[in-house]
């Protein structure tokens, strides 16, 4: 079916504002991705998959201005020993980064990786697989135009996490980053991400996990009020492999985090979780699509949103269990805590199941602070403010606890408490 004219026009206008990086091994993948973008067209407000999040500012040719914001906080993950790689407005900053040397891990830059590269077989592949049954044109656009990113290949157990730090220095920066992560059989790696990245940020991370591989991902999105971000993770899991991802979001006028997970090997485990705290002009969208295509796999989605002053939280989560994917255990929970009357929570938790021997469930709730719990704490002599905070922390805890590493859990809890104390201040 031909694309509607409005979509075609918007897509062409956006493409005209971009330059495709020339040459090198990714060229063929970029051209393929370009074909996908043109065939799908960029998202439009009337697309079902964008029912609750307006995509126009993510699609328009120029990035909307976003004021710089100095949060004055100590660096996120400051207490964690990691290999730091810094990107400023979407460009790798070698001077600010650590030397890219880590045992059992090879790290290259997308912008200058040698001509023959392992990532050639992977770049854009998982993104392309993730385009059906739901289209994700912004991710295809990313594959076609990403000018920078890291290519990480883990062959064994990495001694410390790789920390990707995104800095925002220009009010009109429009960054497109594409990372590729390959986890070999039995290898294990943790990737941390933090910072606001740019005025408008389009990021894709493809993670291919071989049999028995383990990948952990913990992300703290930057607190710049006016930034916009559309991110997508595409991952494919082999037999007995593990993927665990957690995201904390506070602030940001628009955030859309997509996570597309494909369980292709038996006994694989995928957990994806998110905690978000929104205040005022804040729109946060978690869109998850998990495909079970093997036996005895487990998937968990845990999303918690605390919203106030008219903030909007969106959750679209789907579990697809393909024919034959027996013994699937799928769990999904999305909850919102609305701290005042103006905030909104919009959810679409979906199940699509074609195998009979499965146990899949989802739950979704929305409501205010539990008056009874609040009364209990008040009766114990705790003031209303701290009592509300305590209940908020407890509410978010289920998501934070999805992080396996306790020191990272502590980091995240510290950030949640800081957010709450700023509110009271």
């Amino acid at each position, binding site marked *: 079916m031909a694309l509607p004219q409005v979509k075609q026009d918007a897509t062409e206008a956006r493409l005209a504002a971009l330059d495709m990086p020339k040459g090198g091994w990714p060229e063929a993948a970029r051209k393929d991705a370009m074909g996908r973008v043109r065939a799908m067209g960029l998202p439009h407000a009337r697309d079902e998959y964008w029912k609750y999040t307006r995509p126009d500012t993510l699609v328009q040719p120029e990035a909307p201005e976003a004021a710089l914001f100095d949060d004055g906080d100590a660096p996120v993950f400051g207490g964690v020993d990691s290999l730091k790689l810094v990107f400023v407005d979407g460009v790798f900053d070698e001077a600010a980064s650590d030397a890219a040397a880590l045992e059992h891990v090879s790290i290259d830059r997308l912008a200058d990786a040698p001509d023959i590269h392992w990532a050639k077989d992977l770049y854009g592949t998982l993104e392309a697989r993730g385009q059906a049954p739901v289209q994700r044109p912004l991710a295809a656009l990313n594959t076609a135009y990403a000018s920078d990113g890291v290519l990480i290949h883990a062959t064994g157990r990495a001694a410390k996490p790789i920390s990707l730090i995104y800095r925002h220095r220009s009010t009109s920066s429009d960054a497109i980053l594409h990372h590729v992560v390959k986890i070999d059989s039995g290898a294990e790696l943790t990737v941390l991400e933090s910072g606001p990245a740019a005025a408008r940020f389009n990021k894709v991370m493809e993670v291919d996990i071989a049999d028995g591989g383990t990948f952990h991902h913990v992300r703290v999105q930057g607190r710049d009020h006016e930034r916009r971000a559309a991110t997508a993770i595409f991952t494919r899991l082999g037999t007995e492999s593990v993927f665990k991802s957690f995201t904390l979001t506070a602030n940001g006028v628009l955030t859309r985090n997509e996570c597309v997970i494909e369980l292709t090997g038996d006994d694989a485990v995928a957990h994806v979780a998110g905690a978000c705290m929104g205040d005022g002009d804040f729109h946060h969208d978690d869109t998850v699509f998990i495909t079970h295509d093997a036996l005895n796999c487990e998937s968990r989605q845990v999303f918690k949103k605390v919203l106030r002053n008219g903030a909007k939280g969106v959750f679209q989560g789907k579990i697809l269990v393909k024919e034959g994917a027996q013994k699937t255990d799928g769990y999904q929970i999305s909850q919102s805590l609305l701290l*005042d009357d103006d905030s909104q929570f919009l959810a679409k938790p979906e199940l699509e199941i074609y195998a*009979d021997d499965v146990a899949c469930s989802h739950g979704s*709730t929305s409501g205010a602070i539990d008056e009874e719990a609040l009364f209990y704490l008040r009766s114990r002599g705790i003031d209303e403010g701290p009592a509300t905070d305590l209940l908020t922390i407890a509410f978010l805890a289920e998501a934070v606890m999805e992080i396996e590493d306790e020191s990272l859990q502590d980091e995240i809890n510290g950030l949640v408490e800081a957010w709450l104390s700023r509110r009271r201040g």
Partner: protein
Amino acid sequence: MAALDNKTSVKEGVDQETVDAVREVGGAYKYGWETDIEMDYAPKGLNPDIVRLISEKNGEPEWMTEWRLAAYERWLQKEEPDWAMVDYPQIDFQDQYYYARPKSMEVKPKSLDEVDPKLLATYEKLGIPLKEQMILAGVEGAEGAAAEGRVGGGEEVRKVAVDAVFDSVSVGTTFQKELREAGVIFCSISDAIRDHPELVKKYLGSVVPVSDNYYATLNSAVFSDGSFVYVPPGVRCPMELSTYFRINAENTGQFERTLIIADKGSYVSYLEGCTAPQRDTAQLHAAVVEIIVEEDAEVKYSTVQNWFPGDEDGKGGIYNFVTKRADCRGARSKCMWTQVETGSAVTWKYPSCILRGDDSQGEFYSIAITNNHQQADTGTKMIHLGKNTKSRIVSKGISAGHAQNTYRGLVSMHPKAKNSRNYTQCDSLLIGSLCGAHTVPYIEVKNNSSRVEHEATTSKVDDDQLFYCRQRGMDEEEAVALVVNGFCRDVLQALPMEFAMEAQQLVAISLEGSVG
């Protein structure tokens, strides 16, 4: 040992009723026969002339004809929706009859005595009592009523007034006199257009607007008959009202229109049943039901939908595209939808409640069973607009064979719907590895004093339960039917007594051949 026996017999005693009900039921689709009766058809196809013809056949006034024609114009501009998780060949809307009437109904019979005996026999065969005297309390007594399977528990016999619709026309409506004494208007919609134009004009299309959706618009243009109910202020309808829809003619679409108005402080319980003959070609059924619930009024709407589901290979069956909506306009109004969906090849149906009045309540209880190649995409919308509104959704989907069963629902809390409450529970059961069960709920919360809870599970028939039944001597099919009946219990309990029995049996029939 004696103690154990005792226990066992109690256990068996409890379940015996269900087991018997399941056993009683013979062959697969019971209602697949056809009535050989001479019919009057309008020419095939759809155009303004057909719309005018339908209007003329119903003896409608000019304003109604205009209303239909306007709907037809809107329909031409609309596109067939494709978002539901159902897949069927393109419908040729020009290859259908839009009006079919038994020849004997050309001159409308004045009473049931004048109705063609063939028609009456059809309904008798379906188990629908049209002859009032058969179930008149005290006259024929509980015996006759019991034979009809319509006993209301103990001594008191429940009366049910029936409007029987055969293809495009209403055959007759029972208990007219008794209802009239109570002030209740219960008649076919064509009679209502003629006899109560002021009510029809005021309410028709006020809940489901003409251009609401593709099929509702089509219905607005070509609807032929259906039921009309008006319950005046403060009246508790003295009996249950029921409409029985029967499609008989081939290649004929049925487009019924039902309008129920419960005025202030009134109460009515309404039942709907449907069947169709077994045929190789698919047939279209696009109905619209509008319910208006005023202050303090309550409406219960129960459906047992048993249209021909198509054969084991998915040949034939009814395409059931239905728009049902209740507008709880007044404060403290209440509407309850209960549906048992076992028939139809394709179902596309979302009985909804608009909770406009403060403290109004909406409930939706549903069992949807799909077997063989059936597809169902069904659910509800609860739109909370007023303060302190409450809604409850309990949906049980059962999928077997090659069937696809989808729950699709919306719960929306508007900013002004303070202190509102929703609870949703939707469970799916899969029987066999080739079927699918899906859940697509939309949840929109726009204020913080409201609470919304949604739970959904998908699982298969529990092996332990099956094993238990098997070792008590049941064969596998019976055991599955029993377990499924247990799974549906929450919804079955919400049905009026006689419907619950019928539904329980239907559950068993619908699943026939799904095991092994």
